[in-house]
C-alpha cells in the first residue's frame, strides 16, 4: 500500500486570470489566463509527464519531459514554461512526444543507480514513476560510461540525507531553497557532467547556511534528499491532517504514518497559514512526543521533598479534587486558581477556564499569554475594539512597505518569514526597528531600507517620533481619519505627538536612533500605498508594552493603513495557540470572546449554559497569584502545560511562590521545573494525541486531529472534566467537538465555528458568524470592531529598570530558530545539535573591556540573581546591550530577569534587565545543557 500524495499541478496558480478556453487533446477546458499549459493539462485531468516542475516552484523548463505539441507552433515546447492562450490547441501524447520523452528518461536512468527495490523511495519516486509513464524499457548506453555512482552521501544533518548518486540535477531543491524558503543555501556547482548540488561553498549541509526547513526534501523527486525516518522505517502508508504545535504560524501538516508509527510530518499545501512550507521544528522536531522522558501515568506525593508515587487516574484526580475543595472551604475560592496553556487546544483551554470559574468558583484564571502578548490584547482592544491581528498572513504579499518591530521572524516565525522575504525580493521595502541586527536586516536578496537600532526600552519614544513626523509633515490620511476614526481622540492625539518633545531630534539621545533615520522611516511608512506593521515580543515585553501597541495602532490609523490587504497591525504570536488561549476566556477579567466578567448579560449567558453562579469581579493574574502565594493568601494552583518556574521572570520569586503552595497540580508531558514543586502530576497529551483546534496568529482556527492514541489513556479535557466533577461540579462532553459547540453557542465571534465546518472548509478565521460563515481574513474593513477607531495618547514613561555603575549593561532575551521557548519539546529532539546551550551575545567593545573572548565563561548578574553563560562576541548587538536565549533551564536566563512589568497587563519586562557581565577567571562547570534524555529516578509504583 502506498501513500496518496498531494496533487501537484506542475506550476503555480496565477490568481486573478480571466478564463480562457484551450483544447487539450481535443477536449475543451476553461482555465485562468496566465497559467502554464502543464497546469492546464493537469486541471483537465490529462497530466503531462514532468520531473523538474512542481506547483510550489516557478517553471524552470529544464528536464524536457513535459514537452507538448501546440497547433500552429513549431517544435515541442516545454509545457511548464508555455502559458495558455485563448483558443490554443495542445496535444500531450503523440508518437513523436513519446519518443522524445523516452530518450530523455533513458539519459536520466543511464546515470542513476538501478537499486529501486532497496531504495527508501521505492514507490514514492517521481523518477521511477516517470520511467513507467513514458514506457522506458531499455537503456542503450554502455555500462562502462562515466557515472556519479561514487558521488558522496551527506549525512551531516540529523533529519535527512543527501545522496548525490541519486541526484538528477533537476534544481528543484535549489529552487525550493531560493523561492520557498528564501535562504539561498544551495546551488548547482560545476558545469556539464560535473553539475552537482552544493551547499554554501561546498560544505556539508549541517555546517552550511541550510536551516533544515525541509523544503528541498519536499521538492526532491527522487531519494536524493530523503528523511532519515523514511530510510529507517520505510514509506508511510496513510496520513492524518493536523496542525503544528510550535509557533503561532500554525502550519498545517500531513502526519504520515506506517501503521501506527509516525514516519514523517509533511507540510500541507492546502494549509492556509503555510501553503506547503515548514521549518526545522514543525517538519522534523516531533520526536519529543514519544521521548522516554514522557510521563504517562498520574503521580502524587504528600510533600515536594518526597518521591513521586504512581497512582490511578481516579486516585490522582481524587487527591487534587479533595485538596482544592479543602482549600476553597478553608480559605475561600480566592485562595485557589489555575493557569491555562497556549500549547493546548482551544477545547482544553476552554474547559480548564470553565473548571476554574464554575467548579473552583473564582476568576483566578490566567494564561501564559500574560508573559507574551497580553499587551496586544489590551492595546488593540482599546484602539480597534478587539484583541486580534488585523490580517491574514497572505496579506503581506500586497504590502509595499513592511515594518518589523521587536520581532525576529526568521527565527521565531520562520514560515511566515519566508513569505515575507518573498515579498521583499519582489521589491517591497523593509524597516526593522530592533536593537539587534536580526537576519532580516541583511540576508541573501533582502536588505532593510532602514534599521532603527533602538535602545531597549525606548520603543514608545520611537513610535511617537514617527507619529510626530506623520502629523507635522502633513502625512496623515485625512480622509481615512475623518471617515473611520473618532475626531476628538484624533485631535487630542495629534496635538500630543506634535509636541516638540516627541520630535525625532528631541528623542534621538533617548532612542539612540539618528533623527534622520526616524524621519525617513516615518515618511516611507506613511507614503506607501500599503504599509504593514509586524511585531513581536520586543514590543510587548516592556514596562510600556501596552502603550507601544497603542502607539502602533495610532500610527496605522493616522496613515490609513488598516482595513484592506497589504496593511494592518499584526502581532506575531509566540506559541501555537496564544491567540486561541486568549480567545477562550483565559484572562481573569474576561470570558471567551474578550467580554468582561462584570457584564451582566454576558455572565448570564455562561451561567445559563454552565448552570453555575459566576463571580462578576476580576480574578488574579499570574504575578498577582505568585505574590499572594508568597504572602500566604493564595494556596492552590492548577497549571496546565506551562513551566512557569523556567519561563516566568525572577525565578527565585517564582520558586518561592510555588514552594509556598499547599497544593500544586501540574498537567504536562514532562516533569518540568515547575513540577518539582507539585503535589499531583497529571500526565498530558502531545499534539499528536490531541483532538481539537488551535488558533494561530492570523485568527485561523485549524483542526488538530489525533495521529495516535493518547499515551495516558485520557484526553486532557477529560481530566479537567473529571477534576471539576470530583469537586462537585458535574462537567462532561461527548467529544471535543461538543466543547467547540459550547464555545460557539456562548461566544458570538465563534458562532459559526464547528468541527464540521472546519473539516469542510479546512480552516476559518474568526469572526466566523452567520454574516461571515467562511470567516474573516481581514478585519476592520468597513468599520472598526468598536465602531470608530480610537486614538490614545502614548506618553513615554521610562522603565524603572535603570543601568547603574554596578549594572551597566542591558540584557535582552529572545529565541533561536532551532529551539522553542523553554525547550521542553525541542531539547528532546536532535535540534540540540544546532543549539546545545544558551550563550550570551556581547558586543566586541564590551567584551574587550572585560577581557572576554568567544567561548569565555561569564557571570551575568542582575539585582535579583546571577547565572553563568558562555560568551559569543558579536556586533549584532549595539555596545551596552547583551542578549541571550532561554531555551535551557540550566542557563537560568530568567534567574536574572526582574519583577518589572507592563503597566497595564503585568507582562514581564524580559527585554530590559540591567546587568553586569564579568569574566570568570576560574569558572565553575559552565552550564552546558545536559541531554534531556537522561532519565530521572523512577517513581515508586503502588
Amino acid at each position, binding site marked *: 500500500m502506498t501513500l496518496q500524495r498531494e496533487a501537484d499541478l506542475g506550476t503555480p496558480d496565477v490568481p486573478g486570470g480571466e478564463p480562457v478556453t484551450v483544447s487539450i487533446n481535443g477536449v475543451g477546458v476553461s482555465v485562468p489566463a496566465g497559467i502554464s499549459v502543464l497546469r492546464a493539462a493537469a486541471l483537465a485531468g490529462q497530466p503531462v509527464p514532468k520531473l523538474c516542475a512542481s506547483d510550489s516552484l516557478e517553471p524552470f523548463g529544464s528536464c524536457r519531459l513535459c514537452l507538448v505539441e501546440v497547433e500552429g507552433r513549431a517544435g515541442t515546447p516545454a509545457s511548464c514554461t508555455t502559458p495558455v492562450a485563448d483558443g490554443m490547441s495542445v496535444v500531450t501524447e503523440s508518437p513523436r512526444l513519446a519518443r522524445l520523452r523516452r530518450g530523455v528518461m533513458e539519459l536520466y536512468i543511464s546515470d542513476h543507480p538501478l537499486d529501486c527495490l532497496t531504495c527508501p523511495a521505492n514507490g514514492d519516486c517521481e523518477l521511477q514513476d516517470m520511467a513507467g509513464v513514458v514506457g522506458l524499457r531499455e537503456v542503450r548506453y554502455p555500462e562502462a560510461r562515466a557515472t556519479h555512482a561514487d558521488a558522496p552521501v551527506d549525512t551531516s544533518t540529523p533529519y535527512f540525507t543527501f545522496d548525490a548518486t541519486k541526484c538528477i540535477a533537476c534544481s528543484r531543491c535549489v529552487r525550493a531553497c531560493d523561492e520557498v524558503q528564501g535562504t539561498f543555501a544551495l546551488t548547482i556547482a560545476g558545469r556539464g557532467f560535473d553539475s552537482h548540488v552544493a551547499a554554501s561553498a561546498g560544505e556539508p549541509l549541517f555546517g552550511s547556511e541550510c536551516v533544515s526547513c525541509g523544503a528541498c526534501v519536499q521538492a526532491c523527486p527522487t531519494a536524493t534528499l530523503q528523511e532519515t525516518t523514511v530510510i529507517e522505517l520505510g514509506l508511510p502508508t496513510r496520513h492524518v491532517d493536523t496542525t503544528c504545535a510550535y509557533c503561532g504560524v500554525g502550519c498545517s501538516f500531513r502526519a504520515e504514518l506506517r501503521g501506527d508509527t509516525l514516519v514523517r510530518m509533511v507540510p500541507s499545501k492546502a494549509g492556509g497559514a503555510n501553503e506547503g512550507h515548514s521549518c526545522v521544528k514543525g517538519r522534523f522536531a516531533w520526536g519529543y512526543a514519544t521521548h522516554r522522558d514522557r510521563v504517562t501515568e498520574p503521580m502524587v506525593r504528600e510533600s515536594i521533598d518526597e518521591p513521586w508515587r504512581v497512582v490511578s487516574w481516579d486516585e490522582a484526580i481524587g487527591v487534587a479534587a479533595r485538596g482544592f475543595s479543602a482549600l476553597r472551604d478553608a480559605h475561600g475560592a*480566592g485562595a485557589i486558581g489555575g493557569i491555562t496553556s497556549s500549547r493546548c487546544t482551544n477545547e482544553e483551554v476552554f474547559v480548564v477556564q470553565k473548571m476554574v470559574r464554575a467548579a473552583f468558583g473564582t*476568576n*483566578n484564571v490566567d494564561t501564559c499569554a500574560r508573559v507574551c502578548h497580553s499587551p496586544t490584547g489590551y492595546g488593540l482592544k482599546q484602539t480597534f475594539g478587539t484583541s486580534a491581528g488585523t490580517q491574514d498572513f497572505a496579506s503581506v504579499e500586497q504590502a509595499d512597505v513592511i515594518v518589523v518591530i521587536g520581532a525576529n521572524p526568521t527565527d521565531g516565525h520562520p514560515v511566515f518569514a519566508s513569505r515575507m522575504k518573498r515579498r521583499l525580493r519582489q521589491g517591497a521595502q523593509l524597516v526593522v526597528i530592533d536593537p539587534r541586527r536580526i537576519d532580516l536586516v541583511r540576508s541573501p536578496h533582502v536588505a532593510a531600507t532602514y534599521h532603527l537600532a533602538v535602545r531597549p526600552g525606548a520603543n514608545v519614544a520611537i513610535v511617537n517620533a514617527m507619529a510626530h513626523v506623520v502629523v507635522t509633515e502633513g502625512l496623515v490620511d485625512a480622509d481615512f481619519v475623518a471617515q473611520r476614526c473618532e475626531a476628538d481622540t484624533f485631535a*487630542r492625539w495629534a496635538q*500630543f505627538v506634535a509636541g516638540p518633545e516627541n520630535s525625532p531630534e528631541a528623542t534621538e539621545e533617548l532612542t539612540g536612533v539618528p533623527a534622520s533615520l526616524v524621519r525617513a522611516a516615518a515618511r516611507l511608512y506613511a507614503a506607501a500605498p500599503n504599509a504593514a506593521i509586524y511585531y513581536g515580543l520586543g514590543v510587548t515585553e516592556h*514596562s*510600556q508594552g501596552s*502603550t507601544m501597541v497603542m502607539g502602533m495602532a495610532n500610527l496605522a490609523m493616522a496613515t490609513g493603513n488598516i482595513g484592506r490587504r497589504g496593511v494592518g497591525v499584526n502581532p506575531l504570536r509566540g506559541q501555537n495557540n496564544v491567540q486561541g488561549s486568549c480567545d477562550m476566556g483565559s484572562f*481573569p*477579567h474576561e470570558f471567551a470572546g474578550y467580554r*468582561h466578567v462584570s457584564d451582566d448579560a454576558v455572565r448570564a449567558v455562561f451561567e445559563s449554559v454552565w448552570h453555575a453562579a459566576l463571580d462578576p*469581579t*476580576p*480574578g*488574579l*493574574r499570574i*504575578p*498577582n497569584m505568585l*505574590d*499572594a502565594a*508568597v*504572602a500566604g*493568601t493564595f494556596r492552590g494552583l492548577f497549571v496546565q502545560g506551562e513551566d512557569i518556574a523556567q519561563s516566568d521572570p525572577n525565578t527565585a*520569586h517564582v520558586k518561592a511562590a510555588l514552594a509556598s503552595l499547599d497544593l500544586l497540580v501540574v498537567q504536562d508531558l514532562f516533569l518540568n521545573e515547575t513540577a518539582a514543586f507539585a503535589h499531583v502530576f497529571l500526565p498530558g497529551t502531545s499534539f499528536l494525541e490531541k483532538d481539537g483546534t488551535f488558533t494561530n496568529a492570523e485568527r485561523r482556527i485549524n483542526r488538530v486531529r489525533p495521529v495516535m492514541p493518547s499515551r495516558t489513556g485520557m484526553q486532557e479535557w477529560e481530566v479537567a472534566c473529571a477534576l471539576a466533577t470530583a469537586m462537585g461540579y458535574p462537567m462532561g462532553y461527548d467529544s471535543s467537538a461538543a466543547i467547540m459547540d459550547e464555545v460557539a453557542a456562548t461566544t458570538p465571534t465563534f458562532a459559526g465555528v464547528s468541527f464540521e465546518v472546519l473539516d469542510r472548509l479546512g480552516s476559518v478565521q474568526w469572526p466566523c458568524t452567520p454574516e461571515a460563515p467562511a470567516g474573516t481574513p481581514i478585519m476592520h474593513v468597513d468599520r472598526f470592531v468598536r465602531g470608530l477607531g480610537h486614538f490614545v*495618547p502614548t*506618553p513615554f*514613561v521610562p522603565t*524603572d529598570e535603570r543601568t547603574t555603575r554596578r549594572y551597566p549593561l542591558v540584557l535582552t532575551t529572545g529565541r533561536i530558530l532551532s529551539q522553542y521557548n523553554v525547550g521542553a519539546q525541542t531539547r528532546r529532539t536532535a535540534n540540540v545539535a544546532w543549539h546545545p546551550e544558551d550563550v550570551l551575545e556581547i558586543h566586541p567593545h564590551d567584551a574587550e573591556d572585560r577581557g572576554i573572548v568567544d567561548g569565555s565563561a561569564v557571570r551575568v548578574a542582575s539585582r535579583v540573581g546571577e547565572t553563568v553563560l558562555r560568551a559569543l562576541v558579536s556586533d549584532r548587538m549595539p555596545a551596552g546591550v547583551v542578549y541571550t536565549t532561554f531555551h535551557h533551564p540550566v542557563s537560568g536566563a530568567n534567574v536574572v530577569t526582574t*519583577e518589572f*512589568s507592563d*503597566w*497595564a*497587563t*503585568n507582562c514581564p519586562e524580559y527585554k530590559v534587565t540591567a546587568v553586569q557581565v564579568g569574566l570568570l577567571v576560574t569558572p565553575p562547570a559552565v552550564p552546558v545543557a545536559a541531554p534531556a534524555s537522561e532519565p530521572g529516578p523512577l517513581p515508586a509504583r503502588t
Partner: protein
Amino acid sequence: MSGAGDPAPGEASLVRMANQTAANVTGTDPSEAAGAVAAHLRTFWSPVMRGDLARLAAQGQAPLRPEVLAALALLAAPA
C-alpha cells in the same frame, strides 16, 4: 535592604503597579487621571487587590501617587 516599615513583597507590588498605572494614564491629561486609574483598577484588579491597596493607602505609609489616592477615593464612593 528592607526595613521594618517596608511593605511586604506583595504590597510593594501593588504600590508599584498602581503608581505605574497612574504614571502611564496621566501623561497628557492630569484632570482625567483619577478616573482613568479608578477605571483601570476596577477593570483589571481583583477586589482583594483593590482592598489591600486601599488598606495600604489608609495606613498612610505607602508611597502612592496622588492620582492613585484620588482613584481609591472614587472607588470607595457610593455608586
